[in-house]
């Protein structure tokens, strides 16, 4: 087991290094000029040159990468070109909002996905199965931003039950678990939870249906085990895969919520990425992408570690 864990951690390191290379290089390969974020469009050439030198943009790319990586491993992701604020602080501030939003959306999505998928798997062809299948198809295929707009029109404009934008009345710097802040969370979380719910419903349904048809379940039933005992076996068999899928979904939600955060002006990493992209704010873009990718790697690592705990066969493999 320890060897398995060590192997997984060691696998994660080159992936993390690869992530730094890709996130650094991609941003520079994209078209546009980062200095547009700080200089007016008609700034004279000497101003542009002075700024290039000040921000180190006149150095060769590998040198910039080396310097950036050396600082990044110490937790210094540089300063935003657009605002001059520390990127690490910007990303961490936004990350707390995204973790909150993605966490709530993932929890809701995984819970309802497991419940719906489980029932659908047990009652194949029944009403719940049909509803779950339809919902899961809708869930995975509906565009996030469109659903966000529809929910806003229904529950924010026509029925002003929930706010249309933002993380809270005083800004996210004052996030509290009070009713007003929770109201801000409802619509974006409801929009975001649909995808994990759809995917997990489909996964759980297929797994449960498959497991129920396996010989060991027939054998368990033949030995006179009750439905709840059989369910425990089914659940245990399905859990590693559900865990892996849920882990991936949480990762996707962390990085893939750009459109939802933009629609709801939710001050998370997606919104930050959107801003950084439009401003060509390279340090902010790199820092945000790096942190999100590392979180993705960390979540996968966590899933890898948890899977053998749920299913010991994997640890022995």
């Amino acid at each position, binding site marked *: 087991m320890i060897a398995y864990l060590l192997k997984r951690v060691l696998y994660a390191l080159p992936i993390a290094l690869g992530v730094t290379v890709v996130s650094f290089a991609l941003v520079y390969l994209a*078209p*546009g*000029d980062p200095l*547009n*974020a*700080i*200089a*007016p*469009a*008609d*700034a*004279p*050439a000497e*101003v542009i040159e*002075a*700024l290039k030198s*000040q921000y180190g943009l006149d150095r060769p790319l590998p040198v910039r990468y080396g310097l950036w990586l050396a600082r990044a491993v110490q937790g210094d992701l540089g300063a935003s070109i*657009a*605002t*001059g*604020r520390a990127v690490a602080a*910007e990303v961490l*501030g*936004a990350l707390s909002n995204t973790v909150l939003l993605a966490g709530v959306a993932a929890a809701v999505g995984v819970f309802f996905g497991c419940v719906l998928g489980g029932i659908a798997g047990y009652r194949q062809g029944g009403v719940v199965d049909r509803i779950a299948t339809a919902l899961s198809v809708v869930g995975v295929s509906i565009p996030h931003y469109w659903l966000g*707009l529809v929910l*806003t*029109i229904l529950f*924010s*404009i026509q029925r*002003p039950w929930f*706010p*249309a*934008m*933002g*993380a809270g009345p*005083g*800004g*996210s*710097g004052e996030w509290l678990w009070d009713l007003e802040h929770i109201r801000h969370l409802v619509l974006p979380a409801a929009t975001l939870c649909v995808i994990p719910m759809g995917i997990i419903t489909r996964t759980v349904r297929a797994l449960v249906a498959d497991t129920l048809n396996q010989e060991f379940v027939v054998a368990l039933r033949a030995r006179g085990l009750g439905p709840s005992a059989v369910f425990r076996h089914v659940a245990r068999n399905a859990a590693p895969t559900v865990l892996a899928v849920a882990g991936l979904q949480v990762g996707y939600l962390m990085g893939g919520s750009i459109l939802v955060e*933009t*629609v*709801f*002006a939710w*001050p998370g990493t997606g*919104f*930050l990425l*959107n*801003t950084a992209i*439009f*401003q*060509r704010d390279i340090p902010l873009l790199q820092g945000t992408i790096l942190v999100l990718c590392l979180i993705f790697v960390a979540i996968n690592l966590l899933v890898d570690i948890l899977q053998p705990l749920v299913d010991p066969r994997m640890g022995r493999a």
Partner: protein
Amino acid sequence: MSPLFRKQLAPWLLTVPALLGAAFAAQAETVARYGISMADIPLTTGQPDRGAGAYQFTGHTIYDPLIAWEANIGTRPGKLVPGLATEWKVDPKDNKVWRFTLRKGVKFHDGSEFKADAVVWNLDKVLNDKSPQFDAKQSAQVRPRIPSIASYKVVDAYTVEIVTKDVDALFPYQLPWFLIGSPAQWEAQGRDWAKVAVKPSGTGPFKLDKLVPRERADLVRNAAYWDKARLPKTDRIVLMPIPDALTRANALLNGQVDLIETPPPDVLPQLQSRGFKLVQNVTPHVWPYHFSTQPGSPWTDIRVRKAANLAVDREAIVKLLNGQASVAKGQLDKTSPWFGKPSFDIKYDLPAARALMAQAGYTKANPLKAKVIIAQGGTGQMLSLPMNEFIQQSLAEVGIQLEFQVVELETLYLHWRSGAKADMNAGKGITAINLGYVTADPFYALTRFAYSSYVAPNGVNWGGYENKKVDDAIDKIRTSFDVKVQDQLLASVHQQMVDDALMLWVVHDTNPHALSPKVKTFVQAQHWFQDLTTIGM
């Protein structure tokens, strides 16, 4: 009095009036929540970033310039008015030397006094990279806007002298961009601009009370503001960046904000049906195609340029924008003192356009082909793609076949700065560029596009326009210190630009704002700089 009363009831009874007082005070504060189209609060340290529009949010609210734009009148174009300088004069012996008499008795928000040394300290902040207070970010914002300054010095406690590089009679127009912050506050914040950003100190009508980056900035009324005519009508203005137009409109409909900038055109009927008010005004902004007049460009033929101008039904574009634009008759709106009397009347006249194209040797069957670089969207670009498609169809009707190269706005700026001659443009067959232009002052509106010395990459005379009459007029403007003479000469420049059909001028943005019924007053000036002191709840 029983011990019970003394110990338990009395504190409660004493608390009640305090609570009522606090509640009353809270109720008494008038708050306007303003959904702005930017993705972040512009820099609060003195010189705002994010372009001209940002000055109205964290520029002319917290700070003052030496010379200001009159922005609290909506019925006519504003003019230059005294700011922190009560008077400015050019030295009759040496027209490069300007003397500014400063306003007495003005205090920064931190309580320190505004004097001549503060002006010089601020100039050093953005122009002298050896000074300890030099801030490259602020410098990048303002240096291109005050290009004429060569040197400066304190004459006495309330007089400053600024020397320009050349004689430049239009120099005062540069100064509304240069804002004065408190040197004492910079010292108090440990000479750290990041700290000053959170606790800035200017002399403006508002003080910054709270800053949550990317989410909100609370500006509170400066009751001690020196200009009593511009005391804020609202106690607190909360600026909330909401870059997505639909989200902004939703926030207004939902009651989360009280006014927004640039509502999306398709939401206007819904906003108006629910009692929200739309205000807009003539705004110094134009949405044109800037033609290349370099050899090889199809636009070198003036008949083609004029035909393009006559082929577009601008009223239909205004309808497309749900009324949020006005028809362009040139680079400037007709109300501008610099419009002049062009002989070329820009209007929708298909037969005349076709006739000009026929003279130039083109028809629908044998069209002229041209490639235009456009932005997919972004600040100042209005509804870029639908409007460009409309132009494409309009010009096809007279025998001009347009091909678009669609890029991000940032990339478009690169093509713009490089000029039509550059490889990235001429080399790729690009012969026109579509970019919304701010036309706020003589330099921004006219001379930067028309003067032959500003042919890109030395400036943004993108297409390489050269006209001796225009050059001579601009040279004269620089040495004419009488505003009336300046205006006449500027009008002659504009007149010539229109007669030469330097660009295909389409519409002017009207900078629309949507207001909730709670907003009782808002004066929309005919300018990019809107005066937030006029917002009353």
